[in-house]
């Protein structure tokens, strides 16, 4: 089995499902949403976060870099085009100005880490798989899920919905207690524009699963000002939920954290993405609109 890259394992999260949870973040996603607040999750390959601001100029990175990607003249720079993300510099960098995004974890190792917080899961908590898109790694994920189930750990998945339904049904669904399913944009063209992916497959998967899973399927709508958080889009999504008889859902407040991370990745960010959180009144109004439409 090929091991996927995992870029973060977060303990004690209370935001990724009920109770206290450990969340595993997989690298790689078929979508590439411009507003993504975890842009380091998008590419399949390992990457380097490079924070020039905390660099103290010790040149240790330069000394260990095999491919000459770490230059120090005239100032410390990372030449991404030459960087293989081998991670050598991140080991040697004292200030953590370099960090490696994406590591492999053998199944047993991952499960050991996921069981560390077992005591904290109590009645409601457990493990959440997020990303990136976890379903890109069906075999690995399925093995981990089955092991967790043997240990009686509650499991949840966060997905963009771009998966093969049959595979999903067979290898993942039986071991999942909850599925958080992203619904971003109802309009197909906009979906393609902003995420680089059409929404037909996603919507089909969603409707199919909603019939099978009932309340165990929870749609999540990111509120991106000016993009997803428009009255039109939200009304359409809400109508869809009403048609499918879904009353439990989550509206995710916009998180501008992606901007800083794109800087660390050396990526430009779309000027369309606002740099601050949504103001409270707008958010309240939109939530109310959504709620009244779903009912």
């Amino acid at each position: 089995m090929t091991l996927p890259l995992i870029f973060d394992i977060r303990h004690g999260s209370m935001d990724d499902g009920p109770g206290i949870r450990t969340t595993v973040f997989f690298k790689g996603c078929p979508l590439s949403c411009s507003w993504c607040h975890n842009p380091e999750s998008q590419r399949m390959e390992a990457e380097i976060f490079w924070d020039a601001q905390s660099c103290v100029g010790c040149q240790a990175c330069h000394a260990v870099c095999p491919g000459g990607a770490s230059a120090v003249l005239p100032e410390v720079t990372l030449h991404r085009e030459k960087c293989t993300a081998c991670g050598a510099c991140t080991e040697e960098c004292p200030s953590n100005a370099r960090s490696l995004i994406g590591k492999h974890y053998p199944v047993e190792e991952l499960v050991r880490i996921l069981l560390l917080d077992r005591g904290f899961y109590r009645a409601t908590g457990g493990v959440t798989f997020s990303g990136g898109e976890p379903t890109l790694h069906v075999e690995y994920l399925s093995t981990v899920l089955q092991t967790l189930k043997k240990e009686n750990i509650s499991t949840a998945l966060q997905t963009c919905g771009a998966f093969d339904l049959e595979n999903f049904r067979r290898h993942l669904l039986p071991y999942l207690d909850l599925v958080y399913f992203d619904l971003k944009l109802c309009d197909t063209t906009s979906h393609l524009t902003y995420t680089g992916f059409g929404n037909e497959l996603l919507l089909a998967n969603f409707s199919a699963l909603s019939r099978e899973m009932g309340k165990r399927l929870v749609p999540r709508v990111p509120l991106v000002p000016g993009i997803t958080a428009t009255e039109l889009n939200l009304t359409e999504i809400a109508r869809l939920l009403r048609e499918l008889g879904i009353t439990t859902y989550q509206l995710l407040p916009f998180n501008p954290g992606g901007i800083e991370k794109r800087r660390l990745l050396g990526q430009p960010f779309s000027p369309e993405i606002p740099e601050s959180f949504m103001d409270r009144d707008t958010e309240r109004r939109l939530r109310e609109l959504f709620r009244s439409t779903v009912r």
Partner: protein
Amino acid sequence: MEYTQLTDLRLSEFTLSNLPLLNELRTRTLAEKPRVCIERARYVTDSLKNTRNSGEPIQLRYARAVKGFLARKSPQFFDGNLLAGTTTSKPFGAPVYPELTGLTIWPELETISTRKKNPLIIDSADVNELNFEIFPFWLEENILEATRRRTGNPGNLKLFEKLVFFLAGKAGALSHTVPCYRVALERGVDYLIAEALRREHKIIAQGLLSKADKQQAIFYRSVRIALEGVRDYAANLSRGAAKLALAETDPVRKSNLEAMAEVCAQVPAGPARTFREAVNSLWILQVAIHAENINMAISPGRLDQILYPWYRADLDSGDLTVAEALELVGCLWLKLNDNTNLVPETAEELFGGAGTVPAVTVGGVDGQGEDAVNDLTYVILKVTELLQTRDPSVNARYHPEKNSRDYLARVAEVVATTKCVPAFYNDSAAIRTLVNQGVSSEHARDYAIIGCVELSASGRSYDASSSILLNLVAALELALFNGKRPVTGDLQIGPRTGDLESFTTFGEFLSAFHAQLTWLIGQAVQLNEEFGRTHQEKLPSPLLSALFEGPLESGKDLISGGALYNASGATHIGFADVVDSLSAIEQLVFTDGRFTLPQVVAALKDDFEGNEPLRLWLANKAPKYGTDHPVAVKNSTSLLAFLYETYQGYVNYRGGRYRPAFWTMTNHAGQGKLAGALPNGRKAHVSFASGITPVSQAAPDLTCCMRSVARINPLHIPGGEAFNLKMVPVDTADDLESLTDAVEAYFQAGGLHVQFNIMTYQTLVEAKAHPDRHPHLLVRVSGYSAYFRDLNDAMKDEIIARTAYDSRTGAALPLPAGYRDRLPANEPAEKMIVSGDMLNSALALPLAKFVDCITSEIVEEFLEVLLDLMKMVFFFDDDYRKNIEGFAGRYLFRSVDRSITISAVFAQGKLHVDEEEIPDPHVQVIFKDGKALMNFLLAENPDILGAMLRQEVTPEGNLNYLYKFAYMARHLQRMATGRVS
């Protein structure tokens, strides 16, 4: 759940607006400014003066002093509080205990009202009484000086006076205990008096008495005398209330006064018949204990258990409503806030902002191990939630198997509302720990918290839990510098444990560290033993002994080991920083060979100046306590085990064992300020981590942090620990569930204690910038709560810089700008304001010279000028001369280079100054130069700690004489600058 009959555990129908009495009293309490009350010092001193030549043993003399004070103590009724009795004669008072550290404020008497940090108002008549009448009696008699005299000023006492190695708590307090109120409430003080009398008579009736028999008889008599004082005080309260009632026109107040008159006529002399009587009886006993014992952490204990029988009976009979119970408990809470400590400016650095920390404990299991949570538990939680006052420190016990989840969730909710209290305790860990200390299961199950976090078999164990405060960083530095410490310069303090080059393995270095630690602990323990013996000789506790299980049965005072269980507590400062330093040395020096030890230490000496990469390696790449890294886990576990074994090897003067603990009050900030850079990458002068909490930002997320602390074997920390967590936000029902889950899981994993601050960096940064906008922001320090405003800057910074965990993502939030690499706050010294007012033309010249001297940089002659002026003023000024009437004091001042030697001898109302050494001075002051001495004696915000550490001024001998001299010098300064007429 049989004790819980309430349907709404929240008691949500009650708010401060429908409890107007509590609302009003709370507003008054919060607005009250603290005042020094000398009533106690006056009457206790007076009595001891009068009995000086009586030939009676100290037990009886001290009992008479306590009784004399209680009988003469003024009955005060300041507001509409339903409970009678006040700790002092002021609405918010600081009593004076000259037996302990009272004399340390002598130099400050005239400035304490206006000092910058936590001023205390004092009447000028009281200043004079303390200066002329009271303090002089204690010059040779307080615990510190009596110990010095008896032991010949040994090395460990000098080490303590350097303040940066360990602090000896007993110089300032024994207190720190949970009395047993139950018997006195149920049967009354009269019963205890009769019991003491019966036992005394029984001994005397034997006829021929051995020395031990006589001792016992004396003890019983001392108990009786002291308890009579309690009765007298209550009788005065009753009369006082009745008298005021007669004159009172407001009908509500009138009937309240009448009720109090009736209550105090019954209790505490007789058994409490109603809930109100029980609460008031308990309060009067609490006040009375403070006649004898300093107001530090005298902790009422398990109030939901103690008061429950009366609560249930009155509620069932219809004589009490829940609203009335809330009012009475609320009144008790506000009463517990009616006193504060008298703290000199220097000590504000180390302990600033603390209340008197009377700890209340609720919940948990009963003596049989069954769920003890009852309706009164919820009443107490509600009152805590509504009032949000600094004291009492409320602690919630939780037994994972016996107590309900509803109860735990309710406690979590109160934490979410108050943002910091109660603290949580794990019953199964705590009980196991006490049983391991030899406490019976039944008594262990009845444990309560003392002061900050210390575990106590309440009412049965005399724990002296604040005996030693040991700085672990000192031991580490001694190992790194072969027995020296950077702050104390060239002095060889500890044993020579080897040059850096000589360590070839981590094990060898660790042995050196252990050797230093063992030596330091030995010094601290020996000194504590000496202080203990002085307490036995000078400060018996007959009153507290009567309110305890054991002394009456054994016929021995608490201080002589009369309690059922005895222990001494030693707490530790700098735990996390030391563990991380050890791990960094092990990993980066001895395992990876990345640096050599001399390289690391050279960088420490320069505070990493010019070597930031090395510092970052140590700070970022070494294993951290607070994570699952095996090296960190090993070093933290083994240090705890080592300390446990070492302390348990010592038996104290009362026959109990030493118990290590890990709470730090504000000492981690104070000691941090005085310590150099450390191998964990911490820069010099930055605060250490608090209690047993990992270093800020070490643990990447909340559960990792909790897991690491839960891993600690609670048996190794029998004295208790303070684990401080900051978490935000806790707003929604889901957040609350998660908080509850986290605490439950932490306890399942074996954690002993945890407490929270539910606040953001921003809130605290803003509160530091604008103290007046947040006058009553309550924060959890390290086991007690404080108003944020009252803390010193170092401590404020430490609380701000504690990692906040995002309650939603669980992740550690990055520190705000300016706190990532903190430097200590540097405040510019205050400029001296001078006015030329002169008293008397004959004084004009010396005064002018003196003013010149203290306002210019030419200060070599400061001492001569000061003593000249003193002589003149003694001659001219009758009031000033009173300072030395009947005073005999011998002072020797000497500069380090011996270029100046001046002796000052006060005798027969005169001062003789000479440029020669004198034999046997009371105190010798060695100073670097005139300026250092002047700052030491006169500066408005004197940096006494700093001056002593930098060895600018080193006093040796009886410090009380120095305090008195400083008072006289500062008085002259105030005369010269026109601030007294």
